[in-house]
């Protein structure tokens, strides 16, 4: 389990045959984001489309998964249906530990199954099973059947797609263990294109731990920091939903399709209100004692007299922003209803919420009508949004098919590009200012998690382009190592570079521990190289006018600063990709050296 190489299962879904591969590069690419990039560069066809059966769908974990708490994410890499370029998406749940206990550092899926299928893997089995009868099933019905079909309750992870994934929607997510998601950039459609309805990972292996006292002592120290101090209090308490009030007070909360950055009604869907009114319980990713997953409840009167059913829905800041704030739905139960519907159909709730916010403003302005939206859309009308999500998931007409491919393509066809809230993809829930807007617009994953631009905006008032871009590049680099470890980013205060080095050393990865900065940089540049190799051009990224009309606590957006940031960050990103291109030229020598070292062992 602790090894100087990667153990990878590769499955050809067309034949149902698997293969265990030994892949060199542990000390160069570490795992997680680095391993995913390495495997993508070896198996993807940059010139072929995202849905070509040859394209890989990759799931990778890190060297510390299972060995330390909160090393609990899985990195998914693929060619995205959203932009047909390299993409990464991260999810919690149980999949990381399940892969660890299946004794795999990564799973690589290629080919297309002949019928709708489910893949089941474990440390001692691999099977592709026909599930054609599940076509069109929502994610809950799919989960229930897969749980019945495959054994191992509690110690397995079930990944699945809903109707949106089957319809190849670029906003389709992969649901992990009911409450977590590979949400953004369309991983669900990649599974759909491979005729793969689900993946069941059975974590049924066990391993001997490293000898000596260092590891258990260090584990205890890290565990103590995570549970015995205030460092994780926010996530354990209200969760990320705490951000709603903070951002609203700052005038940095996107509201009503970003027509505003604060609204008195936002307090009704604050983390505090969600906890007070809807919070049913918390849950955790396997291997994380923090338990940041907040499950709210909704109940539905489905029949007279007094016949109710109830559902549990996970909420966070981002879903609240996307279907609460952006759609001006200010009742927490109504917002949970929309989140639940997005989950059921297998749509990424952030992308879908922001897309519907644009469609609603376009409806208000008369740019589109019910002829396009099928159901009339009005801000605050939660029932309409729930229906619209099904139209969006299935692509019921040309309008919804275009909208599912991205808000900007729909806006280009119907009008309303100015108010499409798109920063590389549909925006995340921060309107903190210029640095965040550019960070998301140009960032590798177009995610608020690529770098802490939202935080930089809050700490700096001077428009210093060089300082801001330097921060984005450096912060991305350090996050690359964390995501190579598959650490939850909430734990970044605990997993400092020095502590990560200690953790790696304690379990036998001394060389990695000594080269953290170089490995971070290699992963950062390699990911950018892959993005450019699959067609990325930062100069072609648009920042719609709506973002330049935003007014935050600092005042109106500084358009000149925004444009300078975009141009300079784009230049730096190009340089990062070029750096990896140079390394590629010397790579064959590194590989040759590794191979000869391995042979001599």
């Amino acid at each position, binding site marked *: 389990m602790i090894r100087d190489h990667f153990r990878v299962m590769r499955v050809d879904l067309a034949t149902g045959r698997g293969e265990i591969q030994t892949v060199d590069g542990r000390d160069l690419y570490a795992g997680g984001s680095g391993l995913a990039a390495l495997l993508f560069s070896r198996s993807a066809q940059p010139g072929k489309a995202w849905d070509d059966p040859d394209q890989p769908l990759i799931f990778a974990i890190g060297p510390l998964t299972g060995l330390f708490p909160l090393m609990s994410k899985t990195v998914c890499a693929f060619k995205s249906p959203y932009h047909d370029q390299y993409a990464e998406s991260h999810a919690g749940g149980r999949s990381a*530990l399940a892969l660890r206990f299946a004794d795999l550092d990564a799973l690589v899926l290629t080919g297309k199954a002949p019928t709708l299928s489910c893949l089941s893997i474990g440390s001692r089995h691999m099977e592709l099973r026909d599930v054609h009868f599940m076509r069109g099933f929502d994610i809950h019905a799919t989960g229930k059947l897969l749980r019945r079909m495959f054994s191992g309750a509690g110690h397995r992870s079930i990944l699945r797609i809903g109707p949106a994934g089957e319809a190849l929607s670029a906003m389709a997510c992969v649901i992990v263990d009911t409450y977590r998601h590979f949400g953004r950039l369309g991983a669900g459609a990649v599974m759909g294109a491979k005729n793969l309805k689900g993946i069941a990972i059975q974590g049924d292996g066990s*391993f001997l731990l490293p000898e000596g006292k260092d590891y258990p002592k260090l584990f205890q120290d890290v*565990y103590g920091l995570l549970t015995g101090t205030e460092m994780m209090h926010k996530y354990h308490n209200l969760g990320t939903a705490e951000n709603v009030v903070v951002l609203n007070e700052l005038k940095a909360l996107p509201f009503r399709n970003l027509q505003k950055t604060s609204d008195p009604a936002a307090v009704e869907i604050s983390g505090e209100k969600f906890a007070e009114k809807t919070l049913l319980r918390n849950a955790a990713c396997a291997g994380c004692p923090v338990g940041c997953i907040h499950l709210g409840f909704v109940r539905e009167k489905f029949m007279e007299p007094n016949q109710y059913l109830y559902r*549990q829905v996970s909420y966070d800041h981002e879903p609240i922003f996307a279907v609460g704030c952006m759609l001006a739905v200010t009742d927490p139960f109504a917002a949970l209803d929309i989140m639940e519907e997005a989950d059921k159909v297998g749509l990424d709730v952030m992308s879908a919420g922001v897309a519907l916010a644009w469609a609603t403003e376009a409806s208000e302005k008369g740019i589109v009508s019910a002829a396009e939206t099928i159901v009339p859309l009005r801000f605050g009308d939660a029932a309409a949004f729930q229906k619209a999500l099904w139209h969006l998931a299935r692509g019921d007409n040309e309008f919804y098919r275009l909208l599912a491919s991205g808000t900007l393509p729909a806006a280009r066809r119907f009008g309303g590009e100015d108010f499409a809230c798109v920063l590389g993809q549909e925006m995340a829930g921060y309107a903190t200012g210029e640095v965040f807007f550019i960070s998301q617009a140009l960032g590798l994953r177009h995610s608020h998690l690529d770098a802490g631009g939202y935080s930089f905006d809050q700490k700096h008032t001077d428009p210093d382009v060089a300082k801001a871009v330097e921060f984005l590049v450096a912060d991305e680099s350090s996050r690359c190592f964390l995501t190579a470890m598959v650490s939850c980013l909430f734990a970044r205060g605990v997993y400092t570079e020095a502590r990560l080095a200690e953790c790696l050393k304690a379990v036998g990865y001394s060389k990695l521990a000594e080269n953290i900065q170089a490995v971070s940089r290699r992963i950062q540049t390699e990911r950018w190289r892959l993005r450019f190799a699959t067609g990325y051009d930062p100069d072609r990224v648009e920042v719609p006018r709506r973002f330049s009309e935003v007014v935050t606590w600092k005042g109106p957006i500084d358009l000149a600063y925004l444009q300078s940031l975009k141009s300079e960050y784009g230049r730096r990103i190009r340089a990062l990709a070029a750096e990896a291109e140079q390394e590629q030229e010397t790579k064959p020598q590194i590989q040759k050296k590794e191979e000869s070292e391995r042979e001599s062992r």
Partner: protein
Amino acid sequence: MKILTAPRMERCIGCHSCSLACARLVHHHLSWNTAGIRIASSGGLSTGFEARTCLACDPAPCAAACPTGAYSQRRGGGVVVRKNLCIRCGECAAACPVDAVYLAADGDPFVCIHCGRCVPFCPHDCLEHTNLPGPGPAGDPATGGQP
């Protein structure tokens, strides 16, 4: 003698910290199976979690079933395990009425030894290391017999 009970499992968040701690500290393993306490969702995550752990039977059917004396009755309930006597026949697991004995792929059995080392790792205080509860209102057997 104290035993491990899980009287507050409705608080469980499914982090597996207890079973990972047992595997790590008692058995020197990285595993969520080869442990004396195992956490499972019952029918999906929406239904919460249950702890599969020894309920400290006295007499213990697993000890009675063990043909080589590897499992013997523990004072206060449960079993004392002597791994060096185990022939990996699996009779202990078959005899356990509540699936508390885990058999590894090679037949090696894992059961709670009531040492309580998992207890401090539970972030929600679901577990207790306590003296066997005396007579009182009947409780849920999965909670260690506590009401």
